[in-house]
């Protein structure tokens, strides 16, 4: 079965540093997403991306966050100046169907720890 791949699996950074979380979606998928899960809390939607632009974002996704599809295979989430509260598991997901999330595939996540 095709997979969404995320790297690294764990990332430790100092507060104020920039981090880039990387994702390789499934090759024929067109819709891309980032979700995150702070320890002990719910999985939360961050952003969706289609046709090289953000299609929807949550209130969490402020100016410190950005997403990019720099080439035909990668999808990245950048946090410009990390804060302690950014520590979370970040999940990338992709789909070939934009609405209903019928066929949403998730990666195994990147655990980000901000010290």
């Amino acid at each position, binding site marked *: 079965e095709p997979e*969404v791949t*995320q790297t690294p699996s764990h990332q430790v950074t100092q507060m104020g540093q920039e981090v880039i979380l990387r994702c390789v979606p499934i090759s024929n998928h067109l*819709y891309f*997403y980032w*979700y995150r899960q702070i320890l002990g*809390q*719910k*999985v*939360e*939607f961050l952003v*969706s991306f289609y046709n090289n632009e953000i*299609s*929807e974002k*949550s209130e969490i996704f402020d100016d410190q966050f950005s997403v990019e599809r720099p080439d035909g295979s990668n999808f990245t989430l950048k946090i410009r100046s990390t804060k302690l509260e950014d520590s979370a598991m970040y*999940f990338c*997901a992709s789909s070939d169907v*934009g*609405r*209903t*999330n*019928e066929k*949403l595939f*998730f*990666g*195994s*996540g990147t655990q980000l720890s901000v010290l």
Partner: protein
Amino acid sequence: AQSVTQPDIHITVSEGASLELRCNYSYGATPYLFWYVQSPGQGLQLLLKYFSGDTLVQGIKGFEAEFKRSQSSFNLRKPSVHWSDAAEYFCAVVEAAGNKLTFGGGTRVLVKP
């Protein structure tokens, strides 16, 4: 705003016993409903989904779920659990015209030998 509640944070069940995980949602119309499972070190895997039609849906790994509109519930069941079912289970909802999932808080299932 839509919300999803999973009342049980932890459930411990003996291997071979039945399992039922509760999920309640709050949404004006009929949403699209999902159950995901997350095994340790793994991503979120879709177990099953409900969009319309038969309110009892079958999923992978022997799981099923029943949509009850009157109770705003979408409970997940398995008749006989296996040790490999130990994982965290998430109920999620998306509005019919939307493309973002709203997740419940998850239920962690422990399986005793």
